Structure formats: structure tokens, C-alpha cells
């Protein structure tokens, strides 16, 4: 219902808001949130409320960690609580009376470092572990990360769904191990008497307020870490894996390494949070880390928005606070309502005990009706207006190509040499003893009927499909056994027949992922944002825009649009731009003009020609023979996996065998 009393024009608040620059708006928002969070305990003053808020912060930290694994890298982890448990027990054991080995001289250096103390008992002196909470925060994170790598390494090579079940099992066995090893963990009874943190001689004790501030600092640090990783080479690589693993590998992302990194960092977040949580509760039992905890954290990120940093924090806080503050009140209201309208069962509803049922419904309903969550990770950009679409913002054309786009030109001689290459899929021979040579700085076209093995040839050369027999040499080195990302690093880039862009990333991000192998920023650099990393990132962004500008006004005005929203022809162009961003020596184009109209085909053929003029070697699959005749120096014809002809375009066009392959065997005799 819109009120008529307000006389100001509609949307005036939005107007005022819009006049503030976006960056300042974001800063203002952060300042307000921080101030409110800092003042909360002073304003509220109720210890139970502050305690709930501190717990909610712990879960926000967990949600941030799981978001790196599930949201950024797209790996569904159902046993995330296991890493929480590992971090919790690490601190629990390192600062309680659980382990009391006999004192010996070995412990003296540790005593000197204040990690242990010598304690006198009737049966002789024993060691008392008293590792500082502040030291254990990073140490527990490292231990959890170690276990993340340990469990990730064998399983992350598998298809994504298996990971879900393996992590589910992992989440199941960690509490079992904790229960079955009472000598270390005190079994089902749980660890007791875990030391509270101390800071400059002040003991945190059981008062909620100091824990609240530690939790707040932890969450703030993890938000910063998440944001910085997300907007970096690391985050882009993760999101590329999430969107399309094969394309990510073909663009130079080492899948196993980056999945492990996501797993390790996600686990590290949980490890540090576990230490915080146990220090706060001063006890740890196996029941605290069972499957429901993993599900709860998953519900939080699904609710807040998978992949959205602020979303998952809000999701975690809302659900936790709902649980501890409002469900009780809500139940009371329902009871009152039940008495009012005289409905018996309404008077007995206990929402607090049905919280897990509510979680289940949140998961299903969010997936069905709002998969992007409360605060979506990607913001929709308005489509271009007709004016914007037709404005000529620059002539474009590949003659503007920056000199850096094509790396280390090879003067002459064969760049790619394939010999005796055979590939089988079960009983089908996709390629049989294929010989092929691509001289540097030429355009070679591969033609042949559908199913003749053209795309398989590309897949083998780029490492997507393993070579059965034979050798593939590139720029003098054998690449037949390399993995896709290593082949890209050598300088072979490709496009795919059925276009494999990263649909939920922007055009600019797609192109920047192409530069992955040519950039250096690692996780530490991404987090610290040293001047060198900032320079590299800015240069990469600039270079990506230059590459987009090669296509005139086709792509540049759409740089911030999602790849999924592009037209078919623009998706093909983006894929070529992404391949060019890898600074290739050899470019493999799989039917680049498929689905384009004659004018667009001509435009692209022209662009491919100018790329070649700038020294790029091109291997091309194409069905449009006029395009082939225009571009190619040599043509290779495949049929049923065998090379049946090779030569200049005119010669191949007249070849009897080729005509027979294309037009059919019987008609050739007519």
C-alpha cells in the first residue's frame, strides 16, 4: 500500500542516495555497521544477549570459511564441522589438564617459551600445557588447513558430487575419532577446564563482552580476507573452476592446486573459529561438532547468498539471532494467538525445538525460489539502451593490438608438430595415425564432416583428452602428456565449439581469467595487496580492456555484463578475447564463425586475418569453405579420424577424396 500523505516526488530518497558516489556509499555503510557493532555491548548491557551475539559471530566466521569452499570454488562440503572440531580440540588439548606427560628435560625449551609449565604432583612432576590463545588462533588454523589438504588431496580430483559424500563421511568420522580416543580428547565426556584467554594479564573468564570483541575482530578480519581474495587472481581462478572446470583448466588454472587452496583456506577459517569457540565455552565435546552444525552453516550461506561475502555474514547473524532471541517470543505469540482463536495445537507449538525443521525448509525454499540468497553475489547490470548499442566508441580492429598480446614470436619453422597420433574411445577410433604440422605465423584450417575427429584433435592438443599413442611437439618440446593448464602456459590457447565461457562472471572477469597464467599474485599477495600486486592488478585490468577494445563497441560497453547475458556472436567474441588474453603463440579456434550471419562472419574473418598479420599462428576448424579459402595458408582434411588430404585451399577444394567425404560416397560417382 502506497501512502498518499507524502508529497515529495516518488523515489526522492533514492535520488539523494544516488548522488553519493558508490565508493563513498560503501565506505559509509561499513563505518555505520562497524560503529553499531562496536557500541552494541555498551548499549545493550545484557550479558545473555552479548553472549548470543558472540556465538552468532562464531557462526558468521564459519559461514565465511564455508563460503570460500562452496561459494567461491563451488565445492560442496558437507562435513565442514570437522575442521571446526579440529581447531577446537587443538586449543582444548593445548591449554587444559587433559594431557599430563611426565616432566623431562626435553620440555625445558618449551617452558622457557611459556608454552608449558612444570607442575608438581604426588607421583612426580608432570607437564602442564598452557599455550596462549593468541598463538593458538593461527596454529589451529594451520592444523585445520593441513587436514584440509590431507583430506582434499585424494578426493578433489574427483567429480564434484563425490566430494559432497566424502566430506559428509569425514564430518561423520571426526567426532567418532574424538569419542574413541579418550586419552587425548576425554571421549564422550568432553574436555573440561580449557583455559580462558588472557590479554596483558587480564583474564577473559566467563564474561561475554571480551569474547564478543574478539569474535568481532575475527569476523572483520575474515571479511577482509574473503573480499580481497575474491577480487584477485586467486578468487577469479576459484570462480572459473566453479563455473566451468574444463574451461578453467584450458585457460591455465591448475584445478587441483586451486581447489586444495580453497579447501585449506576454508578449513583454516574453521580452525581459528574452533579455537575461539572452545576458549569461550571452556569445554569441547564430540556432540558440538556433528552433522547438524555442518548443515546449519550451509543453511546460513544458502540463506545469505552463496558466494556473497556480506550475504553470508548477514545470513549467519540473522539465523543465529532468530534462533536465540526471537523464536521464544514468537512461540509465545503463537500460544496467545492459539488461545485467542481457540486452536489447541497452536498453543503447544515450540518453534525453538523445530529450528532444524525450519532450516530444512529454508534450504529447499531458497533453492526453489531464490537461489542467489538475500544479498546476491553478482549484481545485475541494466542492458544497454539502443543509443548505447549503436554509439561508435572507437573503430576497434586488431591493428590496435598491444604488442604484449602475442608473446615471443617464433620466426620460422614448425610451431606445432603432431605425429602418429591415435585416440580411442572404447571401440571407436577417433583419430588414427594423424600427422600434422603447423608452421609458425601461418593459418592452418582443419576441415572434414561432422564426427571426423576435428574437435578431438583440438582436445588432445590442449590436453583435455589424453593422447593414446603418438607425439605432440610444440615449439620444440613434447606436450602430449601435459595437463591442460601446463599446455596453456607453453602458449597454446583455444576456443570451444560449444562456447565455454564462465556464465556468471562478467565479460571483463572472463578475459582476466585468460591472464591467469601470466600473473603472479598468490594468496598472500592478494591478502596484503602490496604495491606490486596493486600494479599488476591495475595493469591486468587495463590490458583486458584493451583486448575488449579490439572488437570495437561489441564488447567494451558490456564489460561489466554477465557473460550469460551476451548474444551468441558476442559470446564467441568474448571467448576469442579470453584466449588472446593468455598471450598465446598458437591460437586454436573451433568453428569461430558458427551461428554468425554473413556480415558478422566477414568481420570476424577480417579480425582473424589481422591477428595472423601480427604474428599469431592459428589452427582453425571451420565449416564455411569461403572463410577457409580466405584465411588458410594450408588445409587439412579429416574423415573418420584419418587425414585424407592436405594442401593449399584451392587444391584441396578440387580433391576427389574430399568431395566424396563431403558430398557422400554414392553421389561422387554420379
Amino acid at each position, binding site marked *: 500500500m502506497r501512502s498518499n500523505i507524502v508529497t515529495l516526488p516518488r523515489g526522492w530518497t533514492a535520488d539523494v542516495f544516488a548522488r553519493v558516489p558508490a565508493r563513498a556509499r560503501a565506505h559509509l555503510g561499513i563505518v555505520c555497521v562497524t560503529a553499531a557493532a562496536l557500541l552494541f555491548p555498551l548499549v545493550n548491557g545484557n550479558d545473555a544477549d552479548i553472549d548470543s551475539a558472540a556465538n552468532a559471530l562464531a557462526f558468521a566466521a564459519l559461514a565465511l570459511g564455508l563460503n570460500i569452499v562452496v561459494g567461491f570454488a563451488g565445492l560442496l562440503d558437507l562435513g565442514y564441522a570437522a575442521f571446526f572440531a579440529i581447531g577446537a580440540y587443538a586449543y582444548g588439548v593445548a591449554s587444559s589438564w587433559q594431557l599430563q606427560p611426565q616432566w623431562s628435560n626435553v620440555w625445558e625449551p618449551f617452558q622457557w617459551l611459556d608454552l608449558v609449565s612444570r607442575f608438581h604432583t604426588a607421583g612426580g612432576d608432570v607437564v602442564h600445557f598452557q599455550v596462549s590463545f593468541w598463538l593458538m588462533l593461527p596454529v589451529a588454523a594451520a592444523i585445520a588447513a593441513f587436514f584440509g589438504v590431507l583430506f582434499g588431496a585424494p578426493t578433489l580430483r574427483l567429480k564434484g558430487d563425490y566430494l559432497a559424500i566424502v566430506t559428509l563421511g569425514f564430518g*561423520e568420522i571426526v567426532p567418532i575419532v574424538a569419542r574413541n580416543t579418550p586419552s587425548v580428547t576425554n571421549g564422550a565426556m568432553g574436555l573440561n577446564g580449557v583455559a580462558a584467554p588472557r590479554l596483558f594479564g587480564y583474564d577473559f573468564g566467563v564474561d561475554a563482552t571480551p569474547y564478543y570483541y574478539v569474535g568481532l575482530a575475527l569476523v572483520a578480519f575474515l571479511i577482509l580476507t574473503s573480499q580481497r581474495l575474491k577480487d584477485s587472481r586467486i578468487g577469479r581462478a576459484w570462480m572459473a573452476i566453479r563455473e566451468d572446470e574444463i574451461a578453467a583448466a584450458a585457460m591455465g588454472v591448475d584445478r587441483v592446486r586451486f581447489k586444495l587452496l580453497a579447501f585449506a583456506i576454508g578449513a583454516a577459517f574453521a580452525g581459528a573459529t574452533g579455537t575461539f569457540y572452545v576458549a569461550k565455552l571452556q569445554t569441547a565435546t564430540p556432540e558440538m561438532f556433528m552433522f547438524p552444525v555442518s548443515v546449519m552453516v550451509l543453511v546460513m550461506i544458502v540463506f545469505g547468498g552463496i558466494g556473497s561475502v556480506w550475504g553470508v555474514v548477514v545470513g549467519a547473524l540473522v539465523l543465529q539471532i532468530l534462533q536465540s532471541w526471537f523464536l521464544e517470543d514468537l512461540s509465545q505469540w503463537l500460544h496467545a494467538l492459539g488461545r485467542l482463536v481457540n486452536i489447541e495445537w497452536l498453543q503447544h507449538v515450540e518453534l525453538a525445538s523445530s529450528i532444524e525443521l525450519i532450516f530444512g525448509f529454508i534450504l529447499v525454499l531458497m533453492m526453489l525460489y531464490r537461489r542467489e540468497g538475500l544479498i546476491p553475489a553478482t549484481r545485475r547490470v541494466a542492458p544497454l539502451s539502443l543509443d548505447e548499442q549503436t554509439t561508435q566508441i572507437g573503430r576497434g580492429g586488431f591493428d590496435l593490438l598491444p604488442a604484449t598480446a602475442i608473446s615471443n614470436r617464433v620466426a620460422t619453422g614448425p610451431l606445432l608438430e603432431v605425429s602418429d597420433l591415435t585416440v580411442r574411445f572404447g571401440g571407436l577410433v577417433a583419430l588414427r595415425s594423424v600427422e600434422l604440422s603447423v608452421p609458425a605465423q601461418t593459418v592452418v584450417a582443419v576441415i572434414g564432416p561432422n564426427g571426423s575427429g576435428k574437435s578431438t584433435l583440438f582436445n588432445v592438443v590442449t590436453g583435455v583428452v589424453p593422447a593414446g599413442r603418438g607425439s605432440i611437439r610444440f615449439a620444440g618440446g613434447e606436450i602430449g602428456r601435459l595437463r591442460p593448464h601446463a599446455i596453456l602456459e607453453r602458449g597454446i590457447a583455444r576456443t570451444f565449439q560449444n562456447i565455454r565461457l564462465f556464465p556468471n562472471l562478467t565479460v571483463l572477469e572472463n578475459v582476466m581469467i585468460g591472464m591467469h597464467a601470466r600473473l603472479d599474485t598468490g594468496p598472500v599477495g592478494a591478502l596484503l595487496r602490496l604495491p606490486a600486486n596493486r600494479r599488476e592488478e591495475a595493469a591486468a585490468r587495463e590490458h583486458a580492456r584493451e583486448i575488449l577494445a579490439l572488437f570495437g563497441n561489441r564488447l567494451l560497453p558490456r564489460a561489466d555484463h554477465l557473460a550469460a547475458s551476451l548474444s551468441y556472436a558476442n559470446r564467441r567474441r568474448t571467448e576469442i578475447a579470453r584466449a588472446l588474453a593468455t598471450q598465446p603463440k598458437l591460437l586454436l579456434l573451433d568453428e569461430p564463425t558458427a551461428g554468425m550471419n554473413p556480415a558478422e562472419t566477414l568481420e570476424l574473418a577480417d579480425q582473424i586475418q589481422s591477428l595472423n598479420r601480427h604474428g599469431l599462428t592459428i589452427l582453425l576448424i571451420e565449416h564455411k569453405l569461403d572463410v577457409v579459402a580466405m584465411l588458410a595458408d594450408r588445409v587439412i582434411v579429416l574423415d573418420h579420424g584419418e587425414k585424407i588430404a592436405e594442401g593449399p585451399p584451392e587444391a584441396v577444394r578440387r580433391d576427389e577424396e574430399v568431395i566424396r567425404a563431403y558430398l557422400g560416397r554414392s553421389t561422387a560417382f554420379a
Partner: protein
Amino acid sequence: MSDYGVLLQQVVNGLSLGAMYALLALGFTLVYGILELINFAHFNVFMVSSFFGMWALEFLGITGQSRVLAGPALAGALVFAFAVTMIGAGILGVAIERLSLRPLRGVRGTAAMITTIGVSYILFNIILLTVGAGSENYPNPLPVVRWQLGEVTLELKELLIWGVAVALMLALHFFVNRTRLGKAMRATAQDAEAARMMGVDVDRVIVTAFFLGSALAGAAALIFGLYYNYTSFIVGYTAGLRAFTAAVLGGIGSIPGAMVGGILIGLIETLGGQLIAVRWTDVIIFSILVLVLVFVPTGLFGRVTSTKS
């Protein structure tokens, strides 16, 4: 009893558990074969069905283990209980597919899997909130009949379990390999798009897979109740994880694989429990899951992975 006798007895027990896991594993494999989806709801379809079976037997006036039937009365009670449980489970499975998974058909990524986790959690909590957290004494009309074969004791309930499991698996085998719908199912599993173009009603195939898979889980659930004489809201979790391991061990997507995998997991559970320690059973089975996935990801009977890129 000699050590050898103890082990042999554990083999007999393992075959019974294995028959149950095999039935449950078939549900995972049927759905995975067609949708490439790990259906976490299956865990608790099994658990809920065990209550269907309990209520069906209680409807006949059977409570606890005191009231024992014989002859036609026993046969009738069992047929009724299996029919109610399997149909109830099948309808539950179809309802889950229609309400929560069909709208997500064609959505990429983890959305469908997360939905099945949500559904599983809903089922779990509905039983927890309505029936309660305690374990229920399962009605069991089977007379305790034992045969002593050398050092091994064989019970009537074990023969019954083996008989039911073999009959259901033969029926499934016949259905998949000899009927029109079964052929459509195999075609859809190979290539859903091509099957659709050849006129196969893919939605109907998917519904059938959910119905059959869930009905088999229903049979497994009733067997669970009759074997252990109890059920509870929590039984779906462990049994489901073991059955899933069985499906992977056999090669997920493969029907004979699920049967063989189930038997193997049953044997590993009882022999492992005997030779190592029962409290480590889950760790042993989980380790097998990881080892199989790492070294033979296609399992014993797995399909060659498709070459689509």
C-alpha cells in the same frame, strides 16, 4: 565356538545386512544413473519408511515381539507390510521429485544436491518432532526358528531377508532389461537428450526411477526393522552412508554393481566389527569409500565415463 565358526557366523550376518544395503544402494544408483544426482533425501526416505512398516504392522494389531504368527497369517501380514511400506516409500519418493527436484531440472551446479539435503533434513525433523527421539520397539510377527548347521546358526528371519532381497532384485533386473519402460530407462541413463528426441518421456522415466528406488528403500527399511527389532529417527544416516558406499564400490549407476557392493559392505561391516572393533566400523567403511574413489573411481562394475567435453 571356534574362531572359524565365529567368522562363518559373521558371514551369515553380513549377508543379511548386505542384502539390506544392496536394496538401499539400488535407489542411489537408479537416480544417479539418470540424473547424475546424489539424492541425500534417500537416507531419510529409508528412515521414514521404517516407520511406515511399523505402523502397517501395528495396524494389524502386532506390537513388539510377543505376538508371533505362523502359516498363512504370517505370510499375509508380511505381504501386507511389505506392500504398504514399499508403496508408501515409492509415493514419498515421487512426491519429493515432483515438488522439490523437477523445478530445478536443468539448473547447473549444486542446487539440486543442496535441495535433497534440505528435504532429507525436513523428513528427519518431522519424525523427530512427531515420534520423538527415543527408539521404537519394532513389531515383529516372525517366530524365532533356528537351524544349527555345523557351527553356524541360521535363523528364519535371515532366510526371509535373503528371499525378499533376491526376489526384488530379480524383479528389478527383469523390469530394466525386459520391459519397454526399462529400455527407456537404460536409454535415458546413457543420453537423456537423445532419448528425449527418440520419443522417450524422460519425466516419466525419472518418476519411475524415484518410485522404484524409494520402494526398494522401503523394503530395506522393513527388513531393517525386522532384523534389529527397533527403529528410530536416526537410522537413515548410518545405513544411508553405508549403502552409498556400496553403490560407489559397485560402480555408481550400475545396477548389478549396487547389488554386489551392498553384499560386500555387509560382509565388511560384520567381519570388520569382529576382527577390529565395532566402534571403528564407520571409520573402516568410510576409508573404503575414499580408497575406492581414489583408486577405482568407476567401481567394480562402473561404466566407462562419457567422452562428452
